């Protein structure tokens, strides 16, 4: 695989391949020295046009554990205003000899534009409201390992997942829905109409605005971050109303099935969508998502950059 830009481009076979690789990487991470020489001499650049310290650190940790050289290139939006085009930026950094770019941008499609202008691999670390494929992969990995299932094309069969919140503006939701359904899960999205995407009937999901109707009936409750700036766009009346209708509070938590996983892509908005402490929940796997993130990103980097004959085991 040359690039990882979206879940549809990766396809179900690609998802399964990454999940299998992730199992190896989990094993690597358990070693006393969690490091293998798979990507020695390869340079991986984090090209972040939008701040995201967590995602960047997760990727850079993954790259270092595979012995790649890592660099960070933070592009403030002001440098764009200085007259440098997107193409200038990628061509300049590419000229330094880069094997892969990990790209985060506030605008959908930038990873596709960049891959026209560089020979390096492009790994999408989030573009606009569009895709965040490594998040979807780590979420799939988390769910199927918590369920004790081996990676396969139907490893989420029969799993019912509720995704709650601002689906409209969420690259996590778009990627997750594609990956979950590709592996056989069924998804219900829970949001007011203002936070659903246009033409949501073309998505492979059920839709409801009543969280209480579905909360006792799902295997995974996936809470999305509610961004406070949405208040300025008249998308919901106020945060209190949002919390009342879509927040996870004690009453709702008590109605969850005992084995229901609670997930969140982070960072959590305490007191908005999360009215309970995740540590009080029986099956919160939110920190597990973070640690799985490193293994899955190692798997992605290895898949994109690793030589066919190179061994993960040292």
């Amino acid at each position, binding site marked *: 695989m040359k690039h990882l830009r979206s879940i549809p481009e990766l396809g179900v076979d690609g998802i399964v391949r990454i999940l299998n690789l992730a199992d190896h990487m989990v094993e690597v991470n358990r070693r006393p020295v969690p490091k293998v020489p798979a990507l020695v001499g390869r340079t991986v650049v984090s090209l972040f046009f939008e701040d995201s310290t967590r995602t960047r650190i997760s990727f850079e940790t993954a790259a270092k554990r595979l012995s790649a050289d890592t660099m960070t290139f933070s592009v403030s939006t002001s440098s764009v205003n200085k007259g440098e085009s997107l193409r200038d930026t990628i061509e300049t950094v590419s000229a330094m000899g880069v094997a892969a770019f990990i790209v985060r941008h506030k605008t959908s499609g930038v990873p596709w*534009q960049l891959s026209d202008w560089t020979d390096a691999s492009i790994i999408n670390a989030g573009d606009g409201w569009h895709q965040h494929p490594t998040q979807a992969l780590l979420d799939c990995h988390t769910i199927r390992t918590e369920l004790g299932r081996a990676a396969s094309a139907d490893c989420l069969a029969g799993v019912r997942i509720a995704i709650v919140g601002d689906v409209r503006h969420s690259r996590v939701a778009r990627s997750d829905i594609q990956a979950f359904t590709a592996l056989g899960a069924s998804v219900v999205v829970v949001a007011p109409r203002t936070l659903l995407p246009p033409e949501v009937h073309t998505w492979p999901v059920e839709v409801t605005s009543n969280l209480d109707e579905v909360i006792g009936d799902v295997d995974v409750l996936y809470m999305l971050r509610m961004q406070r700036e949405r208040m300025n766009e008249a998308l919901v009346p106020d945060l209190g109303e949002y919390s009342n209708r879509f927040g996870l509070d004690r009453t709702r938590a008590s109605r969850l099935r005992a084995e229901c996983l609670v997930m969140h892509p982070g960072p959590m908005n305490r007191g908005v969508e999360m009215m309970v402490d995740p540590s009080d929940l029986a099956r919160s796997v939110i920190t597990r998502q973070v640690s799985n993130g490193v293994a899955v990103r190692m798997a992605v980097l290895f898949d994109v950059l690793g030589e066919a004959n190179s061994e993960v085991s040292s």
Partner: protein
Amino acid sequence: MNGRDMNTVNIVGGRIVDSTTDAQGRPADIHIVDGRIAVVATPGTTLPAAATVLDASNAVVSPGFVDLHTHLREPGREESETIETGSRAAALGGFTAVVAMPNTDPAQDSRAVVEFVREQGRRAGLCEVVPSGCITVGRAGEQLVPYAELMKSGVTLFTDDGNGVQDPLLMRRAFEYSSDLGITMAQHCEVSRLTAGAVMHEGSCCSHLGLPGWPAIAEELMVHRDIELVRITGGRLHVLHVSTARSVDMIRAAKADGLPVTAEVTPHHFTLDDESLRTFDPVFKVNPPLRTMADIDALKAGLRDGTIDAIATDHAPHADHLKEQPLDAAPPGMLGLETAFALAVGELGMDLRSVLACLSWNPARIAGIGDRHGRPVAEGEPANLVVLDPGAAWVVDRGLVASKSRNTPYHGRSVTGQVRHTVSNGRAVVIDQVAQR
């Protein structure tokens, strides 16, 4: 007069199609002297000798095209286009007149700027550059432009193109004030509060791509508002770049009510849909956005039944580095002048004469230049003519465009319909697809 006088042109072997002929046209040879058609003769008649002889065999001779919607970028954005380069693209595309949109810097809201644009067009000498004027000062939507003053410089079409006039009171006043001046308000219909940050059509494609949507209703609300304002004020409305099926319906109904409403559609809106954005290539970002196949069908139907009067290019050049940006930062717009005829004749399924009506005499009338463009090809008429090969196939190549910019969405596309020669004000400015200046 000396037959080799520089001011003489003969067009030989062609078939004339104009507003007075049927779709088949009639064979005729043409002799042009000093900017006017001096002789229209049956084939085989010996014409007076001429300095330039244009071969029109197997071709159609028609009045030159008129573009109601051209961005020439001068003054202010000469990195993307100048009046000279834009005029050259126009002449190569068969246009003998283009209406220059007023979103220049400074904007075309004063006689000084309007006269500058007209004069630059004259200097280029490739087609007539007809300046439009702004509806509001600086296109800011706050204060009316002195219309009668600009009329002294020959302006009859007023628009804030790129911006719709948002304030309904101001627009009502513009229609009222202009209603007895014989001028036309050309509206870019977009309620901007509904399109903040929008990159593409709001629909299932934008939903999956996670791009902010430009909903059809944002156009339709303003089309509706302005039609109703025309009804109560007696002003005259031209709807720029109609893009949605509901807009076509409203315009059709307004015309049935006898209201003075006209409309144009761009070639890109009847040939490309929102799925083009799946490439994330900003060359496909345009305002209003590319819509759906259902909208395309409605726009074509509107052209066929006369609801939409004109095909206009919205030729919007942007330098490469401006388009090589993320979709939200890249400016909207695409080239249009050099491909308009091929797309119209090749993709609409309309007879040639109907296509020419939409490209020539209908827009000439709307632009207020029907005294010299879109005229019948007859003795005594101004010689603004084009010679066309409606069946000739060619491939669009962004590297070969005459425009200073290269942002054509049709790069690599095979099209049918070619402009062979263009005669502007009696001079052969394009011969065998080559600009003569």
